[in-house]
């Protein structure tokens, strides 16, 4: 069962499974290196323990795990918002605090106030924000980059729309355009596919693919096993610790997934594992 389930999961839902690396391939450059990272919040046991993560330059890495597995804590550590208790995070060989401008974050859609009266273009401009300078406005360069990013996600004609008028897929694309406009080489995407139908996911993956071809590196936190299986070069299964890491075909096995999602998948068995593929099972 394990093999067939994995096969099904690995099937290119979006007809765009990424080319597997040639055998014996080694990486010489990493966009992100996380070494023995322990992190958490005051007064609580560590949320993540002994985490090792590598995102090679120009690749997409999918981070899979149930709610409470520490995905957001890991993201916050990578973004420099949570001080590690132990261990180290480096982006492009630099300690993360020196590499902030090279990391762009795309939050979960619920983190954003979609009713706030700003236009699509206003939001994408925010990507160009650099530092606290009183009375500063957006430069011509910021505006040009915002326009280019909007074109890249094919939202140019929506530039003056109020963000609240956009559909779920368009909202994702606005946030992605903002991350692109930041000009960072590493993108961290938090649940970019949640609640999207297959066609819209496909559009997003296409944009991601272009970004990666342009040399950007991407780390995606998601519940969506099918997307990880089809779009990422590597998968990382996280549940407080790294359960397994490697190419999706070898990592997304029933055994690893049941350990990652505790008993969720173990108890639902074969039938629902294929459902997970069809309906983009979310683990909550």
């Amino acid at each position, binding site marked *: 069962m394990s093999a067939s389930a994995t096969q099904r999961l690995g099937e290119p839902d979006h007809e765009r499974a990424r080319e597997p690396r040639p055998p014996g391939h080694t990486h010489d450059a990493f966009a992100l290196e996380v070494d023995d990272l322990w992190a958490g919040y005051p007064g609580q046991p560590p949320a993540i323990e002994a985490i090792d993560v590598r995102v090679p330059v120009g690749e997409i890495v999918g981070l899979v795990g149930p709610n409470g597995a520490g995905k957001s804590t890991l993201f916050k550590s990578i*973004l*420099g*918002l949570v001080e590690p208790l132990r261990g180290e995070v480096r982006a492009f060989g630099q300690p993360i605090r020196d590499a*902030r401008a090279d*990391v762009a*974050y*795309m*939050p979960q859609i619920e*983190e*954003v*106030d979609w*009713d*706030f*009266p*700003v*236009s699509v273009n*206003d*939001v994408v401009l*925010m990507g160009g*924000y*650099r*530092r*606290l300078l*009183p*009375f*500063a*406005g*957006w430069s011509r360069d910021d505006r040009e980059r915002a326009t280019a990013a909007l074109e890249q996600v094919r939202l140019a004609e929506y530039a003056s729309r*109020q963000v609240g008028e956009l559909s779920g897929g368009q909202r994702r694309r606005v946030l992605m355009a*903002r991350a692109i406009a*930041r000009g960072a080489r590493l993108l961290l995407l938090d649940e970019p596919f949640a609640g999207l139908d297959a066609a819209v996911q496909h559009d997003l993956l296409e944009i991601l693919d272009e970004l990666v071809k342009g040399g950007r590196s991407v780390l995606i936190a998601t519940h969506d096993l099918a997307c990880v299986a089809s779009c990422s070069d590597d998968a990382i299964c996280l549940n407080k610790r790294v359960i397994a890491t490697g190419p999706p075909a070898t990592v997304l096995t029933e055994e690893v997934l049941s350990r990652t999602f505790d008993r969720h998948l173990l108890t639902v068995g074969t039938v629902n594992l294929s459902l997970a593929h069809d309906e983009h099972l979310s683990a909550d």
Partner: protein
Amino acid sequence: MDAAIEWLIDPYRFEFMRRALYVLLIVSIVGGVVGTFVVHKGLAFSGDALAHSTLAGVAIAFVNGANVSLGALIAAVATALGIGWTQRRGRVSYDTAIGIVFVAMFSLGILVISRRTSYTPDLFSFVFGNILGVTDSDLLGALLLGAGTLIFVAAFRRELVMVAYDPATSATVGIPVRFFQYALLVLIAVAVVVALKAIGIVLVNAMLIVPAATASLLVRRIEQIMALSIALAAIASVIGLHLSFHANVATSPAIVLVACAGFAVALAATSRRRSTLPAEVTPAPRGADA
């Protein structure tokens, strides 16, 4: 025609009416700018709490012969910081925390006043507003606080908007999110104090909420909402001021009622617009399925 001009010009023969007009224009500008954030971040209740909390500062300053507006400012800013603090680490919900801070400060104010046996008209002018009692130093105070508020918003408009729209991502680009969340509450506190003497504790929140809410029905972008709510507040202020002068009614409720009437009109106009079918769609005939 002459009568209309007379109606408009006549009140300003009096210096207290001119001062009233100036202070109302300052209130309109500050209220429009800060009120846009109040309306769009769901801070209406915080605004009301900040307004009521000023009673404690007003009462304590009054009893001790200190500057009453300064007392109001200290009470409002302290309450703003208290609200921000409970928002962060409260084990009760945000609105419950505000409700508690609000009644505590208001009760303290009433308690202090109740110790005085004589009638205290100056104090009640803060509760219900006394636009015609605005002095030159009140006007100067409003001008300074208003200018400070506008300068801060202009200086950090990008940060204020980014934190309001998406605090999580703002933190990742190095914006001190917590500072700006507190700053917004302090801006509301200052805006309340700017309008306090003119409008009064009970109604001051209206100058933050009503014009901005009306403007939000009519335009979409934050700069447009700010500009339009300043204009709407100024129009309501002038109409209210004239009504009170000519009809001999209290000024601040007149202004607030005019502003609320404007809101009702805007709401009615935009609701009708929304429920209309596009021209190319013909409505389904009634009872077609019968």
